[in-house]
């Protein structure tokens, strides 16, 4: 998958877990995840959904340093997305 394809899929997954009103179509690689409306619980919902949606096995702690949607997409691609 390309980064754009991964980001498109991430938008759909994030929309399900986020509690904020976000223009998901405007989410770009440099969009910071912290502005997308996740709290300490919904971020866990998001990680669960990402693991299931992309069928990837990774430790959730690995995403702690990730700041942007683009970095998250790159991480998932490295893991096999």
């Amino acid at each position, binding site marked *: 998958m390309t980064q754009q394809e991964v980001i498109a899929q991430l938008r759909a997954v994030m929309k399900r877990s986020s509690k904020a009103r976000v223009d998901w179509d405007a989410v770009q690689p440099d969009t910071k995840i912290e502005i997308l409306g996740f709290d300490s619980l919904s971020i866990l*919902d998001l990680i*669960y*959904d990402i*693991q299931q949606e992309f069928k990837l096995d990774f430790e959730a702690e690995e995403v702690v340093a990730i700041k942007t949607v683009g970095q998250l997409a790159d991480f998932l691609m490295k893991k096999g997305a």
Partner: protein
Amino acid sequence: MRYLLEYAAARGMLCMLDRMDLAASERLATRIAGFWFLLHGMRRRVAIDNIIRSGITSDPKEAQRIARDSFRHFAVLVVESLKSGECFNEQNWKDRVRVDINPETMRLLEDPRQGIILVSGHFGNWEIAAQLLSYLKPVAGITRPLDNPYTNRLMESRKPRNRFRLIPKHDTDALRFLKILRNGEMLALLNDQHARREDPLVDFFGRPAHTHTSPALLHLVTRTPLCFGYCLRTGPMQYTVHAGPPLHFAATGNREADIRTILEALNRLLEDAIRLHPEQYLWAHRRWK
């Protein structure tokens, strides 16, 4: 003004406690708890009703006895939590504490790189449990600050900490739980308080109760070992720390079902512990709203 008056009263109580030895403090606390039990009709009725509807006993007199003992236990808990810094340190804590921890769990506690999620309830002495476990591994717990900021600061300054820290319930760092586990700490969660309406209903003593999902979700996404434990009071400033084997649940893809499986298992473990020592449970909380 009300906050200042409450703060003054709290400071006065703490000064009095500091001047009294443990036995005298506990006698006073037990008497105050007895009066509180008589005067606070709503909490008393909630406690008795909860005990009967949980099947602990069907006898109203026995339910009243357990409820009153529960109030007394809570008062003693407060005293012992505030005085525990005088009694326990890293060298002597095992003199007063029996450690009943599953060997596999103990190996996890002794590994500084391994995070662990410990789930318990408002049973035994959860405050001292965190302090004692922090002698084995750094512990992070979640707290909701008291409404009164003066009293909150006062109580926070009095609690012995060792390697035990409290993080606010409404912290803005969405990744805080993951960071705690990545750092090899224990995340201690009390999972028996009434949760949000959107949280799932899971049976607790046979009655559905909204239950926090965080321990289940954390375990599913991090695969950090999940463990149930508690700290039972066995005498004045004497305890047994119990922790069962690590629990492992696999994600199936059905998030709601996965969460429910884990929460049901944790609730059953807490119920089993409470049935053995019902007077050490906080029955006055309106769990089943």
